[in-house]
């Protein structure tokens, strides 16, 4: 009965109800879209920092990540990769060795980081060695192959099959000097990776650096990157002394802060938008209540109690909220889906942007995150009820006799 009354009342002044509804739908749908795209940007940023190069988590000798000391190595036997991968949260583990040197091709030279990898394992942890612009990934037998970034390739004027001269300082103090052939070129969008990184075979680098049986870190890929921090603590206790586990938040503290800041600003956005929407709902419901003073008086004289009148108005608000939520969220879903599948390519207008240690690519897209739908939906309902609270009160406080006289 209450429901029927509420529905009919909303329908009575269709135009007004529809206008208010449209505001509510617009605010929720567009908000959901915006949140989806922003989350997409942050996902890109996180991926660029972690999935391409760092991995979600890294195990190394204590202090190594701070200064990348060449001599802080450990042996493969110190930490068993199979045991790591046996854990359900860890999808894959890859060993690495790192050094810095001068890379030359013909008459061009550039400084670069040399990362020695196990191509098979690395491919399961990071994407850089697989997502190639040109050429092919490294095969296990190809000891003198190298993958370089597109920026570096351009600066050196080198292409697939070209020869690289490597110059670096070995562990015994001698100058390490060798030749590599470019097998593939990658383009990640990240400035450092594209302009100053060379991926080489782990075995080859060990030889060059005179560091037999050594590695600097084990990079890990996780199933739930956002839960990396607690996992790092757990993992640390199972490792031998002298080792530390760092999650991407430790490696990239800026990014962790940026993402936390985004979560806060997300709530602020929702708050501001819904404040404006709420004021509109307030107006509508005041009008609707004032128009019906006589009618409420009639209902009261028939025996309807004040709390029931209040409930009636609140039900109308709730119905509007539910309705707009349905339409708003589905529209938001559709828009997000479109942006996730198709997206918007702004490469002509902007270059990749570095933020908090990661890169935001100009190809904007959305990602589906439950909170981005749940929070706007929940708050929309809340604000509908809140906004109708005062008018509902007004209606409930009416004096039947006075009300009947009015209107």
């Amino acid at each position: 009965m209450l429901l029927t009354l509420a529905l009919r009342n909303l329908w009575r002044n269709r135009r007004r109800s529809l206008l208010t509804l449209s505001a509510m739908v617009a605010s929720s749908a567009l908000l959901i879209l915006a949140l989806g795209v922003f989350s997409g940007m942050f996902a890109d940023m996180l991926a660029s920092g972690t999935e391409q190069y760092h991995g979600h988590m890294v195990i190394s000798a204590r202090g190594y990540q701070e200064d990348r000391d060449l001599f802080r190595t450990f042996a493969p036997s110190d930490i068993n990769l199979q045991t790591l991968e046996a854990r359900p949260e860890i999808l894959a583990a890859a060993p690495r060795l790192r050094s810095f040197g001068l890379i030359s091709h013909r008459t061009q030279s550039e400084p670069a980081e040399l990362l020695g990898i196990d191509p098979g394992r690395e491919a399961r942890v990071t994407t850089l060695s697989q997502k190639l612009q040109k050429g092919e990934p490294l095969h296990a037998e190809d000891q003198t192959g190298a993958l370089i970034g597109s920026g570096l390739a351009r600066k050196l004027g080198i292409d697939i099959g070209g020869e690289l001269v490597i110059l670096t300082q070995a562990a015994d103090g001698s100058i390490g000097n060798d030749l590599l052939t470019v097998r593939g070129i990658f383009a990640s969008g990240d400035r450092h990776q594209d302009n100053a990184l060379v991926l080489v075979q782990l075995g080859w680098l060990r030889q060059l650096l005179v560091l037999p049986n050594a590695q600097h870190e084990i990079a890990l890929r996780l199933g739930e990157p956002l839960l990396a921090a607690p996992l790092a603590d757990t993992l640390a206790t199972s490792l031998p002394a002298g080792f530390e586990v760092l999650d991407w938040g430790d490696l990239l503290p800026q990014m962790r802060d940026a993402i936390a800041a985004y979560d806060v600003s997300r709530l602020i956005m929702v708050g501001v938008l819904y404040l404006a929407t709420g004021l509109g709902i307030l107006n509508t419901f005041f009008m609707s209540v004032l128009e019906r003073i006589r009618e409420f008086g009639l209902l009261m004289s028939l025996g309807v109690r004040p709390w029931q009148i209040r409930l009636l108005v609140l039900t109308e608000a709730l119905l509007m909220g539910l309705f707009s939520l349905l339409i708003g969220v589905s529209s938001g879903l559709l828009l997000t889906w479109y942006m996730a599948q198709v997206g918007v390519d702004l490469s002509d207008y902007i270059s990749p942007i570095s933020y908090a240690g990661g890169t935001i690519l100009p190809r904007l897209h959305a990602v589906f995150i439950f909170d981005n739908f749940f929070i706007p939906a929940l708050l929309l309902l809340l604000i509908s009820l809140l906004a109708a609270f005062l008018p509902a009160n007004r209606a409930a406080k009416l004096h039947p006799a006075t009300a009947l006289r009015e209107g």
Partner: protein
Amino acid sequence: MDDLRLAWKNLWRNRRRTLITLAAIAVSITLMQAAHNLSFGVYASMIDRGVRAGSGHLSIYRQGYLQDRDPKLGFNPQNLAAEISRLAGVESVLPRLYLPGLAQSSRDSRGILLTGTAPVEEYRINPFLRKLPATQMIREGNLRDALVGQRLFEELKLSFGGKFVVTLQGQEGELASELLRVRGIFTSGIKDIDRSLVLVDQHRAATMRGRPQQIHELAIILKPQADERWLLDQIGRLLKNHPQLILVGWQEAMANLADAIRLDYAAQKFIFLIIILIVTIGVINTLLMSVMERIPEFGVILALGAPSWRLQRMLLTEALLLGVIGMLLGSFGGSLATWYLRIEGLDLRYFVSSSLEFGGVVFDPIMRADWDLRWMLKMAFYVCGLALLAAWYPARKAGKISPAGAMRHY
């Protein structure tokens, strides 16, 4: 004038409704102004710091240098630096060389960017060197003094006054090594820079490169109120004698920063658009309600002989008045917020523990707003225009009223 008086009276017919609508308009404008002016201030300070450490507000390069920053594309600035410094609005002209190379200590080696500078001016201008004691700054002349980034210092296990070797490629393609001494260390807050930047005197760098007179970049730093357009023109004239040189703005030389700011503004604009949409729908609703309840009265006014457009003009005046009052209230609030945020600022250090980098420049942890008057005026304009637009549908409804039919409802 009469229309204005009538519109004012009609606006206050339903005080609560008008006040709520005004509140919606005003609060939205206050928030948008505060948010925008805050980012405006933050970006202005970021740009200033960025250009001082980087390419300058305006920069001069050899044609083609900006494509790949090929160290081979240098130029001899001759008197340009001195001539440009004399122009009004120019604070400083910094010569720079950028040479990628390898730094080696007894312990380790790292890829670095050897940057040749004019020590006195650089010390004065570059924000990276703000905390550096004067005694640690590199000295002028072709000396072995070098400033290294904090992280590089630690990673190479260097010491103050300690030696390290820098190897780089000369103009002819041969590799050259030089011994340098650590004179001081600096911290920029950006990991990549603190890991790879080494500052030396420009003459040392040029000699290492094999072209003693050449540099890569003239970074022109402007004073706050400088007339950029005039300067572009003047410097353009000076460059007529140097046909192989080009003048670019920081937006081109530091595209990372420029694009980062653009993206953020775009996101901001999108959110603002949604807010404005919501508020406009609210205004349409309010105006519509006020029209519908006055239909019999409109009938009377039409009966008395007012032409239909007169009635519509009345409504547009009401809408405009609503928009203007809301805009004024909102701007007042926004100005208060901006004023507060300019003096006190927003201290990010409560929320963010590390220094945050955006577009290649570090965020000042204390965010300060600044007055973007042009934007505020544009916003005011738009709001008033939108208020008028919002009246379109209600006015159309009013225009369709026939006096006889309307009065029958009385």
